[in-house]
């Protein structure tokens, strides 16, 4: 049986052969692999860029107390960035699925229209959800903008939902039954964690302190930007984004207020992109 960790290792193997740098998850909370600096900054500017990594992604509002078979407050994305993408990118992606052990000729594979947008990152792209027998297993996106900046060249982002792919590989109906390795299940590792974070995000998190922290990190990010310290500024932007997600899950934001929080994070992300392009890329400083 292909364990969860085997799945990750197979993807590493596959994308390493395609010339990707295999990098590590980034150590600040984030809602998706897209927020990792290896993607956010990597897709800006003209330099070719190929990376792949696993990203534990936190989405407080998606938590289900560990009771839903495929919805979690934290799930594992496998993220690939190809800049520029090769012309046979769709085939290459499908070959990666075969490489992890899926026999696509037995299944129903569809590329279903789904344009992606991240209002907090000021980013959008067009592409698909890839459906395997009707289940979304990957978001496949041609990025058009990041941090409000038009991309040239454009990049392709592949975001695999590892839990969902593992369900197919292991013939399971619930992610908590998945084997991480031969002596450990996904449920043993994460179910209690999921329950606790759901309790925290939906019932206990202090709205007042979350708001205060948001303000604090926003101020810190602005201060860093003023000094040209774009990478620390970006870390604080990520923290703001996560605090916004926490407030949102807690049900603390009315619609109009929600919009204004999104706009504040986006303003920071845009500023990071601009400073990065004008000071880091133009100066020729390596990443």
């Amino acid at each position, binding site marked *: 049986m292909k364990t969860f960790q085997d799945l990750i290792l197979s993807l590493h193997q596959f994308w390493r052969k395609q010339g990707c740098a295999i990098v590590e998850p980034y150590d600040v909370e984030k809602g998706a692999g897209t927020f990792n600096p290896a993607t956010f900054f990597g897709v800006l500017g003209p330099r070719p860029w190929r990376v792949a990594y696993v990203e534990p992604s936190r989405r407080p509002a998606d938590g289900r107390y560990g009771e*839903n078979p495929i919805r979690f407050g934290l799930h594992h994305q496998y993220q690939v960035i190809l800049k520029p993408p090769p*012309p046979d990118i769709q085939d290459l992606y499908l070959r990666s699925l075969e490489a992890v052990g899926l026999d696509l000729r037995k*299944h129903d594979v569809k*590329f*279903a229209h789904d344009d992606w947008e991240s209002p907090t990152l000021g980013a959008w792209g067009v592409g698909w959800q890839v*459906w395997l027998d*009707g289940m979304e297993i990957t978001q496949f996106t*041609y990025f058009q903008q990041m941090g409000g900046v038009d991309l040239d060249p*454009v990049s392709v982002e592949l975001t695999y939902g590892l839990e969902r792919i593992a369900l197919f590989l292991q013939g399971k109906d619930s992610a908590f039954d998945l084997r991480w390795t031969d002596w450990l299940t996904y449920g043993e590792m994460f179910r209690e964690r999921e329950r606790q974070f759901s309790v925290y995000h939906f019932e206990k998190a202090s709205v007042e302190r979350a708001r205060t922290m948001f303000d604090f990190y926003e101020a810190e990010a602005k201060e860093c930007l003023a000094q040209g310290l774009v990478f620390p500024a970006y870390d604080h932007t990520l923290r703001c984004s996560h605090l916004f997600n926490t407030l949102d899950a807690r049900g603390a934001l009315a*619609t109009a207020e929600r919009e204004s929080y999104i706009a504040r994070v986006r303003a920071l992300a845009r500023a990071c992109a601009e400073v990065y392009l004008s000071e880091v890329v133009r100066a020729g400083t390596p990443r």
Partner: protein
Amino acid sequence: MPALLVEIGVEDLPAEEAENIAQSFRENLLFGLKEARLPHGEARLFWTLRRFALLISDVAERQEDAVEEIRGPAVSAGLDSQGNLTPAAQGFLRRYGAGPEKLVRRKVGEKEYLFLRVERPGRPAEEILREIVPQAVREIPCSKFMRWNGGMAFLRPIRWVVVLFGGKVVPVELAGVSAGRQTFGHRFFGHPLNLSQPEEYTTRLREAHVLVDPAERAEVLRRAIRAVEEEYGAKAALSEELWTLILGQTEWPRPVVGRIPRQFLELPEAVVVAALREEGKFVPFTRGGKIAEVFLGFAEGEGDAEVIRQGYERVVGIRLHDAQEFFGQDRRKTLESRVPELKGIVYEARLGTVWDRVERIRRICRVLARELCLPWELLDRAAYLSKADLLTVMVREFPELEGEMGGIYARLDGEREEVAKAIAEHVRPRGKGDELPETPLGLALSLADKLDGVMGPILVGEIPTGSRDPYGVRRRGSAAIRLILEKGLRLDLFGVIEEVRDAYPGTTPAEAVKEFLWERLRSALEERGISYDVAEAVLSRMDGDFLGVWERAQALQALVGRKEIADLALAFGRVRNITRGYEIEGFNPELFEEEAERGLWQAYLLAKERVEKAMAEHRPKEALEALLALKDPIDRYFDQVLVMCEERDLRENRLGFLLSLSRLFLQVADLSRLVVPG
């Protein structure tokens, strides 16, 4: 003459847009051929989400030769008295590098000019195709354009191009791709294939597991749906949107039937239907008003049906499990308790929040309840609760359940059945073919909702122009008119609009809304088979009773083409013409001198009584028949009476009478607008 095949291979197009893309391509390419003077035979369009192709029979190998004539100086300026070329004419020839033997004389109006005849011999078709094929693709309108480093913007990346003219490849270049003869079969069950002739296109692709003809795919879908309907005694819950998606999602559709786990069959039917139909994934079925236990999906290609069925059932189970959770979550609060939260949802910056919108809808409902004799308390209750479902998780997850969900939750909250139904129905009709509300309260609430959607934007200055209609004002206007015409709502719409104008911000006068709806009414009449001139005739006088206008239009349309109505139209035309520009109220019958005057007056009195009675009772057909009796008296009148006589009193009295007669006609229709044959 050889056939031409042009195929554009793309990464998967959005299923809902694939057909439009193909149709635009067809139009553009055929237009290009026509412009380029390349005659051709029949054109057949093929498409899937991965390609669109046009196969055209008998395409000319060369353009037709053409002769163009370019106007130069007038003969008087171009030739001297001896018939020699003047410097002006010589200059003209020099400019085009032509000799005098190419000059001809042509008359334009009264004057004669020198023209230069330029012969343009036809260029070979291949040369033309290299220009018009890329242009035909570049000019396709897309909902969104993307870049993929291919040097152009399109809906999705272009990955291969086939241009075969007879057996020959035409070297077209598009988006960095060179045309060849190689196309691709199904992604998993096909292979690359080289076409030797255009005509083998559909056959070779079918062998490679691609049904490139949408009609063939539609047949597979229909047959599979019918088979399930027969086997399970159920009816497919299709929608236009779902059909478009399933037709667009596969190149080689393979039906797979699955079962819904029993515990989910207790959920409201609308929820299960929405969950299955979501993103065009599955076709739901109903039996006797309840959801049936089967669903149908169409897999791409020839996979293992058993594996796919299990996958489908798992996905359906997960989604319905979600729906069950949403349902439980939503039920923790009543609709009523959610209403104040609508203050937090911005509807439009100038028009306030959804709460403000609800308040305006309630204002309109108050007037409608009075006009349509409906129980105001119930209607107001429905209006108050109508938008609260926007705050439920279910509607956030399944937007198509807006309204419907409100109705379901209202019923569970213990609201009156009429109120629950009205909430459920008030979003209808969503689009052109959608069903209308059925209950009187649902109708009124829907009309109020649509009217608010028209009045709000227009009154803050957002009147739709051309293709710009960001607030969907036209769609809402047409929906309001549909409700009135098809459900027979008798009311003075203009009166309603004036009465509620002060509930809206903005400085635009209410007139703008009336005029906008009046123009929508014109389109509505024409869409329903009323000819242009009949519409003109009944729309000549602004009237808030749209139902009445529609009834008059139908009555008149039924008579058009009959001789008496044409004669009456001519007779009335004389009345209109002679009175044009005059405004005289009243007349004195004692001043009538001629027999024919008194005759028309008598006929007028009789007709007036009948017309007014018929119009008051909404029987325009009888009103028109009463007017028909005036035709002969009018003709006699104009034969015998000199309206524009010398004596001023007499003249004005006659004009005053004719104006009264005219007003009687105009209550029904301005018949002088009819286009009368001969």
